[in-house]
């Protein structure tokens, strides 16, 4: 993230978001959520939708912050709300199953970039939700595997008789997870396509 001339308050928000500081996250929510709520409730959504969009916008902004080239060119609030509007546009379009309509007069950050980050955020949430539905054994094997733990260590940690069994178990668990993911209506909604 590049540091440019931004207001002290905005710097604090950016730092708080990067560090996932609960108090600053709360401050951001208190200050900007009413804008999300008003905007979305006036356009066919409700408070729950506004909360979803607020969360997604924060995660999208968090992901953008991880990029070395990220530079805040407007105020934090302006950017966050613009991202939120873009996200609501996507979600509302999906809901009524019609192509997105342009938002006249609204300064939306580069759409494709926001869309890609939103898609990733939604996919990953779906994956994690589904992992939580697996049995404890599968959950643990997959977590260890995804974190890059060697198979021999997974076998020891899980009390399996051999590395070969650990490998087989990991494969079966991944199959179960994949099946759960594909059977969730959100999978189609996100319209997962190979990139």
């Amino acid at each position, binding site marked *: 993230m590049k540091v440019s001339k931004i207001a002290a308050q905005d710097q604090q928000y950016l730092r708080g978001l990067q560090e996932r500081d609960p108090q600053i996250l709360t401050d951001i*929510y208190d200050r900007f959520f009413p804008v999300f709520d008003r905007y979305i409730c006036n356009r066919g959504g409700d408070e729950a939708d506004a909360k979803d969009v607020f*969360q997604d916008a*924060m*995660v999208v902004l968090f992901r953008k912050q991880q990029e070395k080239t990220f530079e805040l060119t407007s105020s934090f609030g302006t950017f966050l709300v613009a991202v939120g509007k873009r996200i609501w546009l996507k979600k509302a379009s999906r809901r009524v199953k019609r192509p997105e309509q342009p938002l006249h007069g609204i300064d939306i950050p580069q759409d494709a970039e926001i869309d890609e980050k939103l898609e990733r955020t939604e996919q990953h949430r779906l994956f994690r939700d589904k992992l939580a539905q697996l*049995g404890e054994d599968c959950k643990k094997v*997959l977590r260890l595997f995804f974190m890059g733990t060697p198979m021999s260590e997974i076998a020891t940690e899980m009390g399996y008789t051999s590395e070969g069994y650990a490998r087989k178990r990991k494969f079966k668990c*991944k199959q179960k997870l994949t099946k759960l993911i594909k059977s969730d209506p959100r999978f189609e909604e996100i319209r997962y396509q190979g990139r």
Partner: protein
Amino acid sequence: MNEQQAIQIDRYLSGEMSEEERSGFERAVEQSAELAAELSLQRDMEAAFREPEVEDLEEKLAMITGKTTKVRSIQTRPWRWIGLAASVAIAVGIALWMLLPFSQSLTAEELYAAHIDLPSSLEKNLAARSADPDSNEPENLVSQVLQEVDKLYQEGAYQGAAAVIADNREALLQSSPDTYYYLYGILSLQQSEIQSATEALSQVQSGVYGESADWYLTLARLRIEGKTDAVRSKFEQFTNYPNDHLVTAKKVLSSW
């Protein structure tokens, strides 16, 4: 997607293919949109679980916005975070603790009371076991005992549940020692028999109950041993990888 292709994808992503196999597989991916989409899904799936910081952020945002089943009632600042952490404490009658700021150091007893969130049902474990066709454990006896214990457990009849486990001790120990020790440990915690819980949970080796047993054992040790370096180190371990207790472990450490 057939099983053979799924195996190929798994071997490809795990780096288990020879150079020749890799080239062949990559050619197949170029020629099949279905295979390419599946490979992309599996890749993204792996990436999703290598983002503990995003998971942590989402958990915190869910709590702040009240979009979580655990905590829905959000009060106004600065009581919001106190309210979240204290919701468990209220249940065990530590109302006075609510008056303390969240970041203030708490005693071992207060920390234990605030974070000992025992399961309301053993149903999750039952479901996990029934959905797990590869379980090594003999199902009949264990399932029957679990169902009976869970029914009593949900009714709050902890002594009755403990009696059922005691009646089946030998058989359970023979067929599924982890199940025996885990259930015994949880029931002991429910009855505030912390020492017994510690002894039982420390016997759980791994597998289905491993992570949960380790978590409750760490909390029980906090209650018995106090805020020692060894106990703190156990909590820190839970913050090092994505797991069900990561956020709570961080909360414990923030009030250490």
